[in-house]
C-alpha cells in the first residue's frame, strides 16, 4: 500500500529509523512510488530556480517623538515608480514635442559685430542664393532672418519694421507650435505607450546583449586560463627536459673526470 505521507517525509529526508527502512523496502518493490519520487525531486530542483527580486528597501523603526509620523517607517531608496508619474510622462512627451518643433523650425541664434541674428526655417549653407533659386534640382527656401542690430545704428523705421517682422515670425512659429501641441495632446497616450514600449524593448535587448557579452567574456577568460595552463605545462616540460639533459651532461663529465683520475 503506497503511503503518500511517507513519500513526502522521505522526499524531505524526514523519515527515520524503522519507518525509513520500511519505506525503502516499499520503494524497492514499487515502481510507481520510485517514479513519483524522482519526478518530485525534479520539481524541487525546478523550484530552486525561482528567486524573488532583490528588494530595494531599507526601512527602520525610529522613535516617533523625534520624527514626524510619516517617517516612522521610512524607505531609504525610493522606487523609480515614485517619480515616473503620468505627469512626468506628459512632461517628457511635451519636451519631445517641443524639441521636435524646434528642430523642424530650425531656430539658430548668431552673434556678430552688428548684434544678434535670430534665424528660423530651413536655409541653404550658401547665403548668396536668391529667393526661389534652386541648385542641383532641390528647391531651397530662404530662411526668415531677423537681425537685431545695435540701436542707434539704424533708423527708427527700420527698427520698427524689424520688430514687426520678428512678431510675424513669432506668430507664425506659435501657430505651428500650437498645431503641433494640439495634435500631440490628442495622441499623447499613444505616444507615451509607444515610447514606453520602445524603451522596454530597448532595455530588454540591451540586457540580453549584455548577458551574452558577459557570458562570452567568462568563456573567453576560461579559455585563456586553459591556454595559460597548457603553456605553463609545456614550459615545465621543457624545463624538465632541459634539466635532464644538463644532468646527463654533468654525469658524463663526472665519469670522464673519474676515469682520468683512475688512469693517472
Amino acid at each position: 500500500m503506497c503511503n503518500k505521507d511517507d513519500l513526502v517525509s522521505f522526499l524531505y529526508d524526514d523519515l527515520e529509523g524503522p519507518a525509513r527502512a520500511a519505506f525503502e523496502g516499499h520503494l524497492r518493490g514499487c515502481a510507481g512510488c520510485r517514479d513519483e519520487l524522482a519526478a518530485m525531486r525534479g520539481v524541487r530542483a525546478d523550484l530552486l530556480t525561482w528567486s524573488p527580486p532583490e528588494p530595494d528597501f531599507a526601512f527602520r523603526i525610529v522613535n516617533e517623538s523625534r520624527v514626524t509620523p510619516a517617517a516612522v517607517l521610512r524607505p531609504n531608496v525610493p522606487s523609480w515608480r515614485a517619480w515616473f508619474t503620468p505627469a512626468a510622462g506628459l512632461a517628457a512627451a511635451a519636451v519631445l514635442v517641443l524639441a521636435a518643433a524646434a528642430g523642424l523650425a530650425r531656430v539658430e541664434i548668431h552673434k556678430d559685430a552688428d548684434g544678434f541674428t535670430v534665424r528660423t526655417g530651413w536655409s541653404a549653407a550658401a547665403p548668396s542664393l536668391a529667393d526661389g533659386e534652386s541648385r542641383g534640382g532641390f528647391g531651397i527656401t530662404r530662411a526668415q532672418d531677423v537681425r537685431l542690430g545695435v540701436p542707434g545704428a539704424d533708423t527708427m523705421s527700420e527698427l520698427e519694421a524689424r520688430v514687426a517682422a520678428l512678431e510675424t515670425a513669432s506668430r507664425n512659429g506659435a501657430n505651428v507650435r500650437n498645431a503641433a501641441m494640439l495634435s500631440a495632446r490628442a495622441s499623447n497616450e499613444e505616444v507615451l505607450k509607444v515610447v514606453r514600449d520602445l524603451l522596454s524593448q530597448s532595455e530588454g535587448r540591451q540586457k540580453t546583449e549584455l548577458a551574452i557579452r558577459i557570458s562570452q567574456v567568462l568563456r573567453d577568460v576560461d579559455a585563456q586560463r586553459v591556454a595559460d595552463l597548457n603553456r605553463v605545462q609545456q614550459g615545465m616540460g621543457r624545463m624538465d627536459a632541459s634539466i635532464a639533459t644538463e644532468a646527463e651532461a654533468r654525469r658524463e663529465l663526472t665519469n670522464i673526470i673519474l676515469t682520468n683520475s683512475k688512469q693517472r
Partner: protein
Amino acid sequence: MSSTDEELVARSQGGDMDSFNQLVMRWERPIYALAYRTIGREEDARDVCQETFLRAFRALKGFKGQAKFSSWLYRIALNLCRDWIRRERRQPVAQAPEGVDLIELASEATPAETIEDLVARQEISQAVARAMAGLPEDQRTAIILKEYHGLTFQEIADMLDCPLSTVKTRLYQGLSVLRRQLDRNTGFKAGYKHV
C-alpha cells in the same frame, strides 16, 4: 558575537529600538521573500513586509516567546498576505521576469555554462512562478514555507493551525500539480531532465 533573536526581543521589549532594528535587518529579506512568493507583486510584497514589522513592533510587549520570533513574524506576514489576497480578490500574479535578471544570472554562471543554459534557467523560473501562482493558497503556502524557508512539518502545522498530516497532504498535492504544470512546459525543457 551577534545576539540571538531571543536576546534582541528581550532588549526590544525593554525599549531598545536598535535591537528591534537589528531584528528587522535580520528578517526583512526572508519576510519579503515569503510575501513576494505568496502574492507575486514586488511593490505589494514590500508593503506587506513593512507592515509585518510595524505590527510586530506594536505587539512586541505581548510576545511571550511561546514560538520562535521568526515563526511569529511569518505568521503575521502570512495573515497580511491572506488579507491582501482577499482584498484584491484575485490570484497572485506571476512576476518572474522581475525576479530573474539575465545579467545577474550571467555573472553567476560558471564558465562552462552557456547563454542557452541561462535562458533555459530563466524560462524554468518563469514557468515555476506561473505554476505557483495557479496553486490553491494553502498548498502554495505549505510549499513556500517548506521549500524556501526550510521549516519543519511541525512548524508549518503550528503556523497554519492544522494537523501534521494535512501539511504533508498539501505538500503532496501541491507538488503533484506543479509536476503536471511544469511537464506541460516540456517545449523549453528539451534536453532538461529531472534528476
